[in-house]
C-alpha cells in the first residue's frame, strides 16, 4: 500500500494529522506539538510503518515567510509560494518556528518527514531522547541555534556555540556578524 495511505491509517484515527503534503515523492506530515511523542511511538512501533531510524532533527525559522511580501520574488517560487497560499487560506500567520524530524525505515527504505509547529510564546517541545538516542545532539543543536527547548532532554546545553553565548544565531533576525558577543579568554592555569 501507498505510504501516504498507511500513514493516514496509522495517525488518522487519533486525529494526529494536521496537514500532509507530498513534494517530489517525499511525504511530509505535520502533527500537533503536544502529541509528538505519541506520534513517534506509533510511527516506530506500527508494523506497517516501522520507522526505526531517526536521521535528523532540526529547527526552522519562518520569520521571512511570515512577513507580508511586497514584491513576489521570482527565485522563491517553490516553497515560498506554497506557504503564502497556505497562510492565505488559514488566515492567521503560522507559528514562527518549526521542528522537523526526518525518519527512515531501514527495512523498506522509506522516508518520512514529520513537522511540528512551535509558537514563539511557547518554545518547548517534547524530547525524543527516550525513543531515539540519536536525537541527543541534533536537539542540542536546535536549542543552540534557535532556542527551542526540548522537554525531557538529559543534557540540554549548547552544542556548537560556547556556554556564555547569549543569542540564538540561526534565527533570521540575528545579524550575520553577530551582536558583539564577547568571548572571554581568561583561563585557569
Amino acid at each position, binding site marked *: 500500500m501507498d505510504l501516504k495511505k498507511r500513514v493516514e491509517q496509522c495517525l488518522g484515527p487519533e486525529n494526529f494529522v494536521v496537514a500532509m503534503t507530498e513534494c517530489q515523492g517525499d511525504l511530509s506530515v505535520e502533527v500537533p506539538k503536544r502529541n509528538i511523542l505519541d506520534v513517534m511511538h506509533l510511527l516506530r512501533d506500527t508494523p506497517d510503518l516501522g520507522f526505526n531510524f531517526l536521521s535528523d532533527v532540526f529547527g526552522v525559522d519562518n520569520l521571512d515567510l511570515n512577513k507580508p511580501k511586497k514584491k513576489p520574488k521570482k527565485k522563491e517560487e517553490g516553497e515560498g509560494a506554497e506557504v503564502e497560499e497556505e497562510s492565505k487560506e488559514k488566515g492567521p500567520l503560522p507559528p514562527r518556528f518549526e521542528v522537523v524530524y526526518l525518519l527512515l525505515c531501514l527495512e523498506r527504505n522509506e522516508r518520512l518527514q514529520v513537522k511540528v509547529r512551535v509558537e514563539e510564546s511557547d518554545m518547548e517541545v517534547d524530547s525524543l531522547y527516550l525513543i531515539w538516542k540519536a536525537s541527543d545532539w541534533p536537539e542540542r543543536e536546535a536549542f543552540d541555534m534557535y532556542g527551542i527547548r526540548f522537554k525531557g532532554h538529559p543534557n540540554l546545553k549548547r552544542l556548537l556555540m*560556547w556556554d556564555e553565548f547569549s543569542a540564538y544565531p540561526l534565527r533570521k533576525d540575528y545579524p550575520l556578524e553577530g551582536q558583539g558577543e564577547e568571548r572571554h579568554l581568561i583561563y585557569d592555569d
Partner: protein
Amino acid sequence: MGKIQAYNGGGWIATKLEWLINWGRKRSPWPLPFGTACCGIEMMCALAAGYDMARFGAERPSFSPRQADVLIQAGTINLKLAPVFKKIYDQMAEPKCVISMGACASSGGVFRTYATLQGIDKLVPVDIYIPGCPPRPEALLQALLMFIEKTEKSQPITHKKYSDLLVGT
C-alpha cells in the same frame, strides 16, 4: 675581525655566542602544526616527502607546545576554539614565532560571521602571514625560510627580553 675584538676585550664572546645560538635555532625550527582546516592539508603536504620541510630542519612537528619554536596556524580559528589557541601559544617557550597560514588565519577569510575569529593577530602577535586560500606548500616553505632569515638577524643575548631570562638563571 673577531680576533682583534677579542684581544681588545669585550664583545667577542657575546657576538660569537649569539651567532652560535642563531646557528642552532635556524637549523632546527620545530613547528607546532595547528591545522584546523584545509590549510592543514597543505601543511601536511609540505611536511611530507614531496616538499620535505625537513630539508630546513623542521622534520619534527612538535605536538607539544613546550618543545616548539614555530607555531604554524593553518586554518580557521573560531571563537569557541580561541581560548585553547591562546593557551597553546602561551605555553610555548620564549623565542617563538607565529606563522599565520592562509586567509582564514590571517583575517577570517570568507567567514565574516559571528562565530569566527577575524584574524589570529587579534589574539597573538603574528610574525609571518601567508596569503592564499589555501596557500601552496611552496608558500609555507618560503615562510619557513623567512623565519630562518629572521632568526639569523636576531640578537638572543643582547635582546632585552632574552637577556633578562639569562640573568635570572
